[in-house]
């Protein structure tokens, strides 16, 4: 490539032309065109889309008319009737019972108990209540989920979109006067995304602490978290001063220990609690990335095994995939790729999208295990400060969780888990 290669972007040319040019300079590092994987991804459908689709099936059409309590012959009339129904009516009657109030399931917690549908009139009142002059966000007590009229599915699993009632976007986007809004740091009303703020911008003096939490700074337990790549989380608890020694010097000692103890050996499960029986009690916890990823590794090994296997005389999926021409790099050619895909597409399709959904089942299992790992870590972290997942915090037990916000780039082959864990943890804890 000559030195004086023009790398500028010409704003008078289409974005695609610019992309193709700069991509070439970058060694064709990006694909010419994004191509979906053969394993079917999730697609979104709203009820407006589902009505005409379900109408094509005689059985579903009958069921839909049953739902309306009237036999509509034409789809247009049915859609006219449906226009005034609560969002999610069709979904909660035909596709899932989540959000359907006719069968309250007392044994199951979480979304199953906490979601419901809401009629259009209720929604209108709800919105007008929030937007009214009298409304004070500090008194807002909304909970649970309201079913939207949209689902996502990959043909095997199902996801239901819903509105989260315990958060107000008006608080997040500051549509209320500042004196009416509860403080972000002490209330989840403004949203529980992974966006965190630096504490020094909120708390500047001892008085601030007393105002926000209603207690002296010394009575607060602080859990410090350090996130990283090899060790996804390293945590240390700074207990309230009553529990520790009352001198200032002692606290300094504790802080230096925090730095030293970040790296203790980790037992096989990856979660370890180390307590020193001495006078100074330190509670630390470290979690290794390798431990958290075991479930994912197991799935990858299994999938690799499946791809490598060669049932009597046929070519293995791995070698078929290797034979597909590149979509990126100097030899990238979509035309060649498509040509080869036409020859082998059926085999790949059969392997990835078997009717038994075996790959999706394994993938799902590994995702569940991965989430469970996160849940265990969260629970252990909360136990360190005297709480537990799913249990409301004791009023007397004041605690702050401090999360290291340092950003870093990771160049390892395994993606670092720190950011995904942060978002999981922050959502769960708030």
């Amino acid at each position, binding site marked *: 490539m000559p030195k004086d290669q023009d790398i*500028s*972007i010409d*704003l008078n*040319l*289409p*974005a*695609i*032309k610019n*992309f193709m040019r700069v*991509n070439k300079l*970058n060694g064709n590092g*990006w694909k*010419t*065109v*994004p191509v*979906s994987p053969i394993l079917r991804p999730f697609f979104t*459908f*709203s009820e*407006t*889309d589902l*009505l*005409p*689709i*379900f109408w*094509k099936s005689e*059985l*579903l059409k009958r*069921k839909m008319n049953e739902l309306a309590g009237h036999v509509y012959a034409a789809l247009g009339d049915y859609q006219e009737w449906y*226009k005034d129904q609560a*969002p999610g009516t069709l979904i909660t009657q*035909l*596709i*899932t*019972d*989540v959000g359907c109030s006719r*069968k309250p399931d007392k044994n199951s917690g979480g979304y*199953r108990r906490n*979601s419901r549908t809401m009629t259009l009139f209720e929604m209108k009142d709800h*919105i007008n209540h929030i*937007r009214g002059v009298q409304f004070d966000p500090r008194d807002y007590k909304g909970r649970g*989920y309201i079913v939207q009229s949209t689902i996502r599915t990959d*043909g*095997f*699993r*199902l996801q*239901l979109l*819903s*509105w*989260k009632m315990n*958060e*107000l976007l008006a608080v997040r986007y*500051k549509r209320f*006067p500042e004196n009416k809004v509860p403080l972000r740091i002490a209330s989840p009303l403004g*949203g529980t995304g992974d966006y965190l703020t*630096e504490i020094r*911008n909120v708390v500047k003096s001892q008085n601030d602490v007393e105002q926000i939490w209603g207690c002296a700074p010394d009575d607060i337990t602080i859990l410090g978290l350090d996130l990283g790549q090899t060790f996804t989380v390293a945590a240390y608890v700074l207990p309230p001063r009553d529990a520790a020694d009352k001198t200032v010097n002692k606290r300094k000692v504790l802080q230096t220990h925090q730095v030293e103890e970040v790296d203790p050996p980790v037992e096989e499960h990856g979660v370890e609690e180390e307590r020193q029986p001495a006078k100074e009690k330190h509670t630390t916890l470290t979690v290794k990335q390798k431990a958290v990823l075991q479930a994912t590794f197991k799935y990858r090994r299994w999938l690799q095994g499946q791809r490598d296997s060669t049932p009597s005389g046929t070519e293995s999926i791995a070698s078929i995939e290797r034979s597909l021409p590149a979509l990126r790099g100097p030899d990238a050619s979509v*035309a060649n790729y*498509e040509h080869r*895909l036409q020859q082998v597409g059926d085999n790949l399709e059969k392997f990835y999208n078997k009717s038994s959904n075996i790959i999706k089942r394994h993938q799902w299992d590994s995702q569940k295990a991965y989430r469970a790992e996160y849940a265990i870590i969260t629970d252990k972290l909360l136990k360190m400060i005297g709480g537990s997942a799913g249990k409301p915090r004791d009023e007397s037990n004041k605690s702050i969780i401090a999360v290291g916000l340092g950003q870093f*780039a990771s160049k390892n082959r395994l993606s670092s888990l720190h950011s995904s864990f942060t978002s999981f943890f922050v959502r769960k804890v708030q």
Partner: protein
Amino acid sequence: MLKMNRWKPPKIKAEDPSEDKNPSKKVPETSSTKKPKKLALVTSTDKPTIIKTMSVEHPTASLDIGTLFTNAKRASAATAREVTRVMEDVVRITASTKKRCQLLLGKYIELVTASPQLLADDKTLLDLMCPRILKSDLESSNDNDQAVVDETEESSDQQKFYSSLLTYLHSNNLPQNKNALKFVSRLETLGLVEKKDRGALSSLANYPGTSLFRVAGGQLARELESHYKNGAVKIHQKVKGSSPFFIDSVSVADGKDPNRDIISNWIAHKEEGERQGA
């Protein structure tokens, strides 16, 4: 590789107006930026309006509720099998059509961008496929990921174009959308799709394409925009900035020879890094 975290001074907000040196200047500024926006009350119970306003007030959560069949069975045992069959069918059709569409677009892009000059027609079509890069996109550095995606139900021209194109690929009927029709005739000229007789009887596909591909079209439009538009900006910044593949006046200073070709420079850069690492 760790990037050093740089200390930033805390943001200081003047709590007490008397501390402000220029209160007269400050006041209009805060009132224009911080003035809480009061949203209007809703008067109608029109479904799309209500749904849209609810999304303005509450965030959306995606509940992972298990498998399609189990859920359908819980809802109604009599129709569970049928619902699952239909949904599986719909996902299969959408997935395969989208993939065909992606490959078709890829082939077209490959063909027309190979030559240095673009025809005026192709230029219009490429602009339809992905909006142009704006000056503001280049100026805002790495924050492109943070751009808020407008998830409203209103369909943009792009979405209509892609939905129409997907419908055409699925049903093999010529698209109604003018832009999509233009694109299809161009593809026919290039020999990328079979030429279709304009007067031929239209075939009826099993499911209506507008329902199948309304959201998928929007999804495809967003994917392609982030790939081409944001991708071009990202690569541009990478090539221009830190990459050792690109030689500019700054990298010459760290011992790279501008007279050598890029690969040798890159190898030299790598060896340098290894020496330092050791």
